[in-house]
Protein backbone atom coordinates (compact mmCIF):
# COMPACT_ATOMS: atom_id res chain seq x y z
CA UNK A 1 0.00 0.00 0.00
CA UNK A 2 2.73 2.39 1.00
CA UNK A 3 4.48 2.40 -2.42
CA UNK A 4 1.18 3.20 -4.13
CA UNK A 5 0.44 6.11 -1.81
CA UNK A 6 3.97 7.39 -2.26
CA UNK A 7 3.67 7.14 -6.05
CA UNK A 8 0.36 9.02 -6.01
CA UNK A 9 1.93 11.65 -3.75
CA UNK A 10 4.75 12.26 -6.22
CA UNK A 11 2.50 12.19 -9.27
CA UNK A 12 -0.01 14.63 -7.76
CA UNK A 13 2.91 17.04 -7.46
CA UNK A 14 2.44 17.71 -11.15
CA UNK A 15 -1.19 18.71 -10.72
CA UNK A 16 -0.71 20.76 -7.57
CA UNK A 17 2.65 22.50 -7.78
CA UNK A 18 2.82 22.01 -11.55
CA UNK A 19 -0.29 24.15 -11.97
CA UNK A 20 0.57 26.59 -9.19
CA UNK A 21 3.88 27.33 -10.93
CA UNK A 22 1.90 28.69 -13.88
CA UNK A 23 0.06 31.14 -11.65
CA UNK A 24 3.38 32.14 -10.08
CA UNK A 25 4.77 32.71 -13.57
CA UNK A 26 1.82 35.00 -14.32
CA UNK A 27 2.47 36.87 -11.06
CA UNK A 28 6.08 37.25 -12.15
CA UNK A 29 4.91 38.62 -15.48
CA UNK A 30 6.80 35.93 -17.38
CA UNK A 31 3.98 33.88 -18.90
CA UNK A 32 0.41 34.38 -20.17
CA UNK A 33 0.85 38.13 -19.95
CA UNK A 34 -2.15 38.66 -22.20
CA UNK A 35 -4.45 37.19 -19.57
CA UNK A 36 -5.69 38.98 -16.45
CA UNK A 37 -4.05 37.72 -13.26
CA UNK A 38 -7.42 37.12 -11.63
CA UNK A 39 -8.54 35.17 -14.70
CA UNK A 40 -5.51 32.89 -14.63
CA UNK A 41 -6.06 32.37 -10.91
CA UNK A 42 -9.76 31.61 -11.34
CA UNK A 43 -9.11 29.11 -14.12
CA UNK A 44 -6.24 27.25 -12.47
CA UNK A 45 -7.53 27.31 -8.89
CA UNK A 46 -9.82 24.24 -9.10
CA UNK A 47 -7.07 22.10 -10.59
CA UNK A 48 -4.56 23.40 -8.05
CA UNK A 49 -6.90 22.74 -5.12
CA UNK A 50 -7.70 19.22 -6.30
CA UNK A 51 -4.01 18.51 -6.61
CA UNK A 52 -3.26 19.86 -3.14
CA UNK A 53 -6.14 17.88 -1.70
CA UNK A 54 -4.53 14.70 -3.03
CA UNK A 55 -1.10 15.85 -1.81
CA UNK A 56 -2.27 16.53 1.73
CA UNK A 57 -4.33 13.34 1.90
CA UNK A 58 -1.52 11.09 0.67
CA UNK A 59 0.98 13.12 2.69
CA UNK A 60 -1.11 12.65 5.81
CA UNK A 61 -1.33 8.91 5.16
CA UNK A 62 2.41 8.67 4.62
CA UNK A 63 3.06 10.55 7.84
CA UNK A 64 0.55 8.44 9.73
CA UNK A 65 2.33 5.28 8.64
CA UNK A 66 5.70 6.57 9.78
CA UNK A 67 4.93 9.29 12.31
CA UNK A 68 7.49 8.43 14.96
CA UNK A 69 10.30 8.21 12.44
CA UNK A 70 9.23 11.34 10.53
CA UNK A 71 9.05 13.52 13.61
CA UNK A 72 12.77 13.41 14.27
CA UNK A 73 13.73 13.57 10.60
CA UNK A 74 15.41 16.89 9.85
CA UNK A 75 14.25 16.89 6.23
CA UNK A 76 10.66 16.37 7.33
CA UNK A 77 10.96 19.40 9.60
CA UNK A 78 12.49 21.49 6.81
CA UNK A 79 9.68 20.41 4.52
CA UNK A 80 7.01 21.39 7.06
CA UNK A 81 8.61 24.77 7.64
CA UNK A 82 8.80 25.41 3.89
CA UNK A 83 5.15 24.34 3.53
CA UNK A 84 4.14 26.78 6.24
CA UNK A 85 6.16 29.56 4.61
CA UNK A 86 4.42 28.83 1.31
CA UNK A 87 1.05 29.01 3.06
CA UNK A 88 1.93 32.27 4.84
CA UNK A 89 3.14 33.72 1.53
CA UNK A 90 -0.17 32.83 -0.12
CA UNK A 91 -2.11 34.24 2.82
CA UNK A 92 -0.19 37.51 2.79
CA UNK A 93 -0.71 37.79 -0.96
CA UNK A 94 -4.46 37.20 -0.74
CA UNK A 95 -4.97 39.45 2.28
CA UNK A 96 -2.87 42.40 1.15
CA UNK A 97 -1.41 42.47 -2.38
CA UNK A 98 -4.50 41.01 -4.01
CA UNK A 99 -6.64 43.79 -2.52
CA UNK A 100 -5.34 46.20 -5.15
CA UNK A 101 -5.65 43.77 -8.03
CA UNK A 102 -8.17 45.91 -9.90
CA UNK A 103 -5.36 48.35 -10.63
CA UNK A 104 -2.92 45.87 -12.13
CA UNK A 105 -4.99 42.87 -13.16
CA UNK A 106 -4.50 43.38 -16.86
CA UNK A 107 -0.90 44.58 -16.63
CA UNK A 108 1.61 42.25 -18.25
CA UNK A 109 4.01 43.01 -15.39
CA UNK A 110 2.31 43.03 -11.97
CA UNK A 111 3.64 45.23 -9.10
CA UNK A 112 6.74 44.23 -7.16
CA UNK A 113 4.79 42.76 -4.26
CA UNK A 114 2.94 40.39 -6.55
CA UNK A 115 6.14 39.37 -8.29
CA UNK A 116 7.85 38.72 -4.96
CA UNK A 117 4.93 36.55 -3.91
CA UNK A 118 5.31 34.53 -7.09
CA UNK A 119 9.06 34.17 -6.69
CA UNK A 120 8.88 33.28 -2.99
CA UNK A 121 6.24 30.68 -3.77
CA UNK A 122 8.47 28.98 -6.34
CA UNK A 123 11.45 28.99 -3.96
CA UNK A 124 9.38 27.52 -1.11
CA UNK A 125 8.08 24.70 -3.28
CA UNK A 126 11.54 23.85 -4.55
CA UNK A 127 12.62 23.46 -0.91
CA UNK A 128 9.51 21.39 -0.13
CA UNK A 129 10.22 19.03 -3.04
CA UNK A 130 13.94 18.78 -2.31
CA UNK A 131 13.46 18.13 1.39
CA UNK A 132 10.56 15.79 0.69
CA UNK A 133 12.73 13.58 -1.47
CA UNK A 134 15.36 13.35 1.26
CA UNK A 135 12.94 12.32 4.00
CA UNK A 136 12.96 8.70 2.87
CA UNK A 137 16.73 8.50 3.07
CA UNK A 138 16.78 9.57 6.70
CA UNK A 139 14.07 7.26 7.98
Amino acid at each position, binding site marked *: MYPIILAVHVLA*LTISVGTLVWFDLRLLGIKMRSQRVSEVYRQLMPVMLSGFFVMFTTGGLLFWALAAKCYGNVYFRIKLIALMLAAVNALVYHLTTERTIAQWDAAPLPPVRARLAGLFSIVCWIVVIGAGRRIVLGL
Partner: protein
Amino acid sequence: MGSTWLVSIVELSHLLGLTILVGSVVVVSLRMFGVVMTRMPLSEVAGELWNWALFGLILQLTSGVLLFMSEAVRWYHSGPFLVKMTCLFLALLFHFTIYRRVTGRK
Protein backbone atom coordinates in the same frame (compact mmCIF):
# COMPACT_ATOMS: atom_id res chain seq x y z
CA MET B 1 29.24 7.18 -6.12
CA GLY B 2 30.21 10.76 -5.37
CA SER B 3 29.09 13.43 -2.96
CA THR B 4 25.59 13.03 -1.61
CA TRP B 5 24.98 16.69 -2.42
CA LEU B 6 25.35 15.96 -6.11
CA VAL B 7 22.93 13.08 -5.81
CA SER B 8 20.47 15.37 -4.02
CA ILE B 9 20.71 17.99 -6.74
CA VAL B 10 20.26 15.44 -9.51
CA GLU B 11 17.25 13.89 -7.79
CA LEU B 12 15.75 17.32 -7.05
CA SER B 13 16.26 18.28 -10.70
CA HIS B 14 14.48 15.12 -11.77
CA LEU B 15 11.51 15.93 -9.53
CA LEU B 16 11.40 19.58 -10.59
CA GLY B 17 11.64 18.60 -14.23
CA LEU B 18 8.72 16.25 -13.67
CA THR B 19 6.65 19.00 -12.04
CA ILE B 20 7.42 21.50 -14.80
CA LEU B 21 7.03 19.11 -17.73
CA VAL B 22 3.98 17.12 -16.67
CA GLY B 23 2.42 20.18 -15.04
CA SER B 24 2.62 21.95 -18.40
CA VAL B 25 1.22 18.93 -20.20
CA VAL B 26 -1.65 18.74 -17.68
CA VAL B 27 -2.54 22.41 -18.20
CA VAL B 28 -2.44 22.15 -22.01
CA SER B 29 -4.38 18.89 -21.97
CA LEU B 30 -7.02 20.45 -19.72
CA ARG B 31 -7.18 23.34 -22.18
CA MET B 32 -7.84 20.82 -24.92
CA PHE B 33 -10.79 19.60 -22.86
CA GLY B 34 -11.90 23.20 -22.52
CA VAL B 35 -11.53 23.09 -18.74
CA VAL B 36 -8.86 25.73 -18.05
CA MET B 37 -7.55 28.95 -19.64
CA THR B 38 -10.55 28.98 -21.92
CA ARG B 39 -10.09 32.62 -22.91
CA MET B 40 -6.79 31.86 -24.58
CA PRO B 41 -6.72 30.04 -27.89
CA LEU B 42 -5.25 26.54 -27.59
CA SER B 43 -2.29 27.40 -29.79
CA GLU B 44 -1.44 30.34 -27.55
CA VAL B 45 -1.63 28.26 -24.36
CA ALA B 46 0.54 25.58 -25.94
CA GLY B 47 2.93 28.23 -27.20
CA GLU B 48 3.31 29.92 -23.81
CA LEU B 49 3.93 26.67 -22.02
CA TRP B 50 6.26 25.17 -24.59
CA ASN B 51 9.51 26.83 -23.50
CA TRP B 52 9.05 25.80 -19.91
CA ALA B 53 7.89 22.32 -20.86
CA LEU B 54 11.03 22.02 -22.97
CA PHE B 55 13.14 23.22 -20.04
CA GLY B 56 11.44 20.60 -17.88
CA LEU B 57 12.10 17.93 -20.48
CA ILE B 58 15.78 18.83 -20.80
CA LEU B 59 16.08 18.83 -17.01
CA GLN B 60 14.45 15.39 -16.92
CA LEU B 61 16.59 13.89 -19.66
CA THR B 62 19.82 15.25 -18.19
CA SER B 63 19.15 14.23 -14.60
CA GLY B 64 17.64 10.97 -15.82
CA VAL B 65 20.78 10.05 -17.73
CA LEU B 66 22.90 10.91 -14.69
CA LEU B 67 20.70 8.81 -12.42
CA PHE B 68 20.77 5.94 -14.89
CA MET B 69 24.54 6.07 -15.15
CA SER B 70 24.81 5.34 -11.46
CA GLU B 71 22.50 2.33 -11.60
CA ALA B 72 22.71 1.21 -15.21
CA VAL B 73 23.33 -2.50 -14.72
CA ARG B 74 20.57 -2.91 -12.18
CA TRP B 75 18.01 -0.87 -14.06
CA TYR B 76 18.74 -2.43 -17.44
CA HIS B 77 17.11 -5.60 -16.17
CA SER B 78 14.26 -3.80 -14.42
CA GLY B 79 10.80 -4.40 -15.87
CA PRO B 80 9.32 -1.14 -14.58
CA PHE B 81 12.27 0.81 -15.97
CA LEU B 82 11.65 -0.71 -19.39
CA VAL B 83 7.98 0.24 -19.17
CA LYS B 84 8.91 3.76 -18.15
CA MET B 85 11.35 4.22 -21.02
CA THR B 86 8.89 2.77 -23.54
CA CYS B 87 6.17 5.15 -22.36
CA LEU B 88 8.63 8.05 -22.46
CA PHE B 89 9.54 7.20 -26.04
CA LEU B 90 5.88 6.95 -27.03
CA ALA B 91 5.06 10.21 -25.25
CA LEU B 92 7.84 12.07 -27.06
CA LEU B 93 6.84 10.51 -30.37
CA PHE B 94 3.22 11.53 -29.79
CA HIS B 95 4.25 15.02 -28.80
CA PHE B 96 6.36 15.75 -31.83
CA THR B 97 3.74 14.48 -34.26
CA ILE B 98 0.03 14.52 -33.42
CA TYR B 99 0.21 16.92 -30.49
CA ARG B 100 2.09 19.54 -32.46
CA ARG B 101 -0.40 19.49 -35.28
CA VAL B 102 -3.38 19.71 -32.93
CA THR B 103 -2.03 22.69 -31.04
CA GLY B 104 -1.08 24.41 -34.26
CA ARG B 105 2.55 24.86 -33.33
CA LYS B 106 4.98 25.22 -36.16
